[in-house]
């Protein structure tokens, strides 16, 4: 099982609380105007990693993890992503993920449900340039929300 990874950034402070390892997964179809990284839209971009190898690297950094991209919820190989997340959760790591879908949209996509169940916190919604606000914590535009998925999945 493999995943296309644009970049692994260990120790960043901008993608969630504390120091975290961000994994940039390749591919996104939302194409938000003003996207800061259009090169990440290509699902075939980045480097192909064996999932276990990727998990080993990320776990070795000993930081909590943030999935970003691209849109990690659009990763073509859902099984591979689930396997990665299981490994990370088994190592006791907390997982954030950024997506261009809103929470409601994401919940309607059946195939990504197992992914959502392994994520602790979701930052949802497309980046809307008109709503950009640099004073927001961990978000680009004010339409986006930071969601505790444990609570959301329990109630829906």
């Amino acid at each position, binding site marked *: 099982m493999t995943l296309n990874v644009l970049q692994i*950034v260990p120790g960043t402070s901008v993608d969630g609380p504390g120091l975290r390892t961000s994994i940039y997964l390749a591919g996104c179809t939302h194409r938000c105007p003003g996207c800061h990284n259009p090169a990440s839209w290509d699902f075939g971009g980045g480097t192909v990693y064996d999932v276990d190898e990727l998990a080993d690297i990320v776990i070795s950094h000993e930081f909590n993890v943030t999935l970003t991209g691209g849109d990690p919820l659009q990763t073509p190989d859902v099984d591979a992503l689930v396997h990665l997340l299981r490994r990370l959760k088994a190592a006791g790591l907390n997982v954030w993920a950024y997506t261009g879908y809103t929470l409601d949209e994401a919940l309607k996509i059946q195939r990504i449900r197992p992914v959502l169940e392994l994520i602790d916190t979701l930052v949802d919604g497309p980046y809307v340039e008109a709503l950009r606000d640099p004073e927001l914590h961990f978000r680009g535009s004010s339409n986006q929300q930071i969601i505790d998925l444990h609570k959301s999945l329990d109630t829906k």
Partner: protein
Amino acid sequence: MIQTIIKRDGRVVGYNEEKIKAAIRKAMLTTDLGEDEALIQRIVDRIGMTGKERMTVEQIQDAVELALMKSPRKEVARKYIAYRNQRSIARRAKTRDLFMEIIAAKNNDVTRENANMNTDSPAGMMMKFASETTKPFVDDYLLSDEARDAVRHNYLHIHDKDYYPTKSLTCVQHPLDRILEYGFIAGHGESRPAKRIETASIIGCISLETAQNEMHGGQAIPAFDFYLAPFVRSSFIEEVKNLEQVTGSDLSHLYNVEIEDYVKKPLEGLEGEQRLLQHAINRTTARVHQAMEAFIHNMNTIHSRGGNQVVFSSINYGTDTSAEGRCIIRELLHSTYEGVGNGATAIFPIQIWKKKRGVNYLPEDKNYDLYQLACKVTARRFFPNFVNLDATFNQHEKWDANDPKRYLYEVATMGCRTRVFENRYGEKTSVGRGNLSFSTINIVRIAIELMSIQDKQERIERFFERLDEVLDITARQLNDRYEFQKTALAKQFPLLMSRLWNGSEKLGPNDTIESVINQGTLGIGFIGLAECLVALTGKHHGEDAASQALGLRIVSHMRSRANEYSEKFGHNYSVLATPAEGLSGRFTRADRKSFGVIPGVTDRDYYTNSNHVPVYYHCSPRHKAQIEAPYHELTRGGHIFYVEIDGDATHNPQAISDIVDLIDKYNIGYGSVNHNRNRCMECGYEDATENLEKCPKCGGTNIDRLQRITGYLVGTTDRWNSAKLAELRDRVVHK
């Protein structure tokens, strides 16, 4: 008959008549009649025979002048005199150029040696003139030949050389309790013991300021919370007494009532004595807040050293768990968070949080809430930094949670990093002691000189031999300076040597300080471990495990040599990870001139700070911590670990505590977090954008971009020297 000549720099050399002949010949050649070898020989013979056994250069030149005047060739005499004058001006020209640059208030690396100093002010200029003319005096008259040569050839830098003739010591951790309890005399004022928090806070400022004028380094308070706590209670009692007057009732049973925490609460719903008690607490808390604000404000405005420099001050705190100590810590942090003036970040004092398990680090610890607050404050204001009392080498066998004076056994640091703790000549403590002097070795140069040796093993072994030679010279130079310093009289340092320095209370004004200063430390510093390793192995310690092993071997070696010197000379020698502000460019410039541009070694404008991973090297904060941590144990004279984080730290105070967790986990002694912080001076808008030029809110361009240089902060990079500016441009965030 002349035997020896005393040269201008004081050295004595054998008499050589050829030099005199050459000078006369030169003068003759500029005249129409040209040279006259017979006359030259007659004059030289006469002077050689009739002169005294030992003469100065000037005396001989006078004699030549007289002889020429008496000769038929008076025009040669005129040329000779003119030539002498020219030479004399030329000798002074270097000083003149330097003076002209200082006068023009130019920004160059001479005037920007220290970013904390304003060399544009009259007092600052005056000091710079003195400083620049004192240094050659020290070279000529106070240094040994080997030390002078090592400095001249760029192997060694003697810090604060301009202060050398004054016999001053570097720094001290103030036992503020002695000052507060007994009062002191400074200048023309006699201070009585403090009675309330406002006075105690001011006396703290005056103590730091006064001692700064008696020393050449920084000033620190090792246990700010413990020292000021009693005055929180005395101020509270004052408030209760006020209430006794208002109510006409006896409230003396409240004077020493147990108070859980001094926190402001609304009086609504409170009745009777409960209401009075809370009112007194509210008033006390407000006064403490005000006193902390005043302390910070004073430390940023009181100038020392003739008015050109704010006091280089630091305060350590965080471990006093009493309600009063907690009140000091809380209000100090709140006040720091708010900022000074219109909310700008205070540059001084450098604040240092004393992180200790069982006291303030674990969630169940009494001061854990204040530690969380400290992380929040650092995220916005860069301070406090964190000193790790749990590091194996920072622990003290005598520390006891029930000892009210346990702070005597808690390590405290100078904000810049200087650490004084172990002691062969008195009690192991940071309090009432300091560094005496320090000198830094250019280990890069030693390595560069051996790069032509092809065999790596041989190259490395030769490096250790050369390092030993320079270490020996350095140890002797520090010992020489100590021998000179110890002859100072106590009255030269009125506050330091009557109250602050341990044991000074038994000195009379005319006693020498010899009996007490051996408790201080002599620092052997180093700079550019990264470049040194690149020169020796091709890779620095951040990128290669073998280089890291060699780096540790080098610094371990320096540490064991320092211990040997301690035995041999009978002092506290320690190895220091040198902060090197003015030095970071000077060594590099000179080495590039000698050896050219060597990739990874002399190709930047600076050498990397001490044992740090180069600022331009991309790596995660954990990797940086793992690489740098083991050097902390070895550098007992002081060290600092930095992480540059990306993004806006105020959005993520947990990132700060995660870095403290790295400090805890990897046994790091002292560390802090660097990040971007901009503040629009027009509207107060703040963010963390890199290189912000224009305020996104009001469009103002007066942006205060805060940066850290060698441990302390500067609000503007105008006074940074060129090497440190280059380093700043190269800094990468660690992620």
